[in-house]
């Protein structure tokens, strides 16, 4: 049980970073984001995505635009904000540090 817990915790932390990475550069909507993540073997269900997207939006890291769709209700297309991009680069540094640290620990064993 605890293994799953830990795994879930790890994924949770990384997921935000991944989402920002995926969105950065072009406006995407929820379904697109899921597809991209799936292609990179990061499996996540839509139910997990929406809360994260909304939270990031409320924190000012993402912004969205409404687009009409022929296939049903209008869709939200998300984009990174200025703040979001700053956040992203900082996260990138932090990520590199973490990966480096883990690698070093593994090496020392």
């Amino acid at each position, binding site marked *: *049980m605890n293994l*799953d*817990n830990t795994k*879930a915790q790890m994924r949770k932390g990384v997921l935000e970073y991944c989402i920002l990475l995926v969105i950065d550069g072009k406006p995407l909507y*929820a*379904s697109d984001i899921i597809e991209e993540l799936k292609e990179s073997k990061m499996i996540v*269900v*839509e*139910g*997990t995505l*929406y*809360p994260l*997207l*909304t*939270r990031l939006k*409320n924190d000012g890291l993402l912004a969205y635009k409404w687009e009409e*769709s022929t*296939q*049903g*209700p*209008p*869709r*939200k297309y998300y984009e990174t904000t200025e703040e979001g991009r700053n956040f992203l680069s900082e996260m990138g540094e932090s990520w590199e540090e973490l990966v480096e640290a883990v690698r070093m620990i593994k090496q020392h064993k």
Partner: protein
Amino acid sequence: MKKTFTINISGSIFHIDDDAFEKLQKYLQMLNKHFGTALEGQEIIQDIEARIAELFIEKTSNKLEVITDLMVDEVIARMGKPEDFMEPGEEEAAEKQSTETRYDTEQKMRRRLYRDGDNRVFGGVCSGMAAYFNMDVVIIRVIFFLLFFIIGPFNILLYFVLWIAVPKAKTTVQRLEMRGKEANISNIEKTIKEEVNEVGASYNKFMNTPDGERGQTRMERFGDMVTSIFRVVLRIIVLLFGAVLIIFGVASLIGFVTTMTIGHSIFSGGLWSFGGHSDVDMAALLNNFVSPGAHVISAIAISILVGIPILLLLFIGTKLLFRYKTNNRLIGLGTFGAWLLALIVLIVVAVNQVGNFRKETSQTITRNVDCAKCKTIYLEMNDDLYESLIQNNFNLDRMKVATVNGNQRLLGHPRFTIEKSSSGEYLLLIKKSSRGSNPEDAQKNVEQIDYNFDQKDSTLHFDPYYLLKDKAQWRQQDVSMILKVPEGKSVYLNEKMVSIINDITNTENMWDGDMVGKTWIMTANGLALKPAFTISKK
């Protein structure tokens, strides 16, 4: 074949199977609970619903195709089962929460006591109670039977009271409420299904036991008849009570009105018996106590104060008898307000009147009793001219009301006492006192007092009453007289004097009433009984 519901998700219409609907509804409810009612949570849910709508649109190739159970499963899998986006700690809490709320809603559902018309022997009282308490009806019936040993035949009375008081569950909603089940669509549907089955079953039953059926309906009919008789009897009692109130109210009203106007109440013992006397002359009362300016207001205020309760009785009586609808609240508040107003007015007037009694003043006249050679002064009373004219319903501090020549006059007994004279002469002091709103007013009131006495040789004749001049009002007037008797001289009190003498100090400590008819001599120690004969020293 299945039923469909028509729903809308995020603004798009869908047709959905009934079981798919339930599944979807549960899923959405769980989401709602998970994300909460905060603004952020609602936003997330809207996004999810929009996505779900999109997915359903993809799956139904045309508008008339229904969303099936399978489709809902696929969508839920795609969107993520609630467990998938909850933390393990959260998951347990959510499970507990969902079971709790289910329990809650069942409890919260209003449970009402109805009579169960479908499962009844007599009136369905026991069945209704069984449904309410969620017990077996047999237990309730046994309890009812056992009650006989506790409260005797009253258990039957209780049963009939409940039969009358508790309504029968007629509509489906009522039937559900009786059992404490929530009256939503699925429950109603279930109930109707049950009923349809029951009708079929009872039809078969009927076909099998025609006698049993008849016996049961006979008992039911008997029970119905008894209760309707009971209801009629109750109604009659209510009508009678109403009639009594009306009669009583009318009598009191007439009595009161006549009292106010002509001074005699025709009915004695109505609601207007004034402390044992059934005749109260209201007009006289007002005239003599209340200054003229406040007469009208006081009369009106008193009418309202007494009239409203009487009218209220009449009102209740007619309402019980004739059963018409009235705006009770308005009437109640209105009459109470008026009554209260009248009370306040009266109090104000009374307080005002007190102002008339603020100052007291008195006037003392000293008269020499011309009788140098007398050894004994004889005290007698003049005839009582007013005895027959006095109204007996008044008794206030020695004051009475008499009707003289059509007018009302106030009169009272003066007070008389005897003291030792220090001047060696007989002296008579007459003190008239009265109250008023200020010293001048008091003085004027004093001058309204009329008292007479006269002297013939050695006899003083006193009037039994002092009178107030016409139209004078009661202001606590008083007349007191002191006869100063020098030492060695005597005085004889006639029997009739008893009505005005007031605690004359004497050496024998004799009561006033015993002092009359005797001669008293003033000694150094006070009044002493004069012996019948004297031994004269020669």
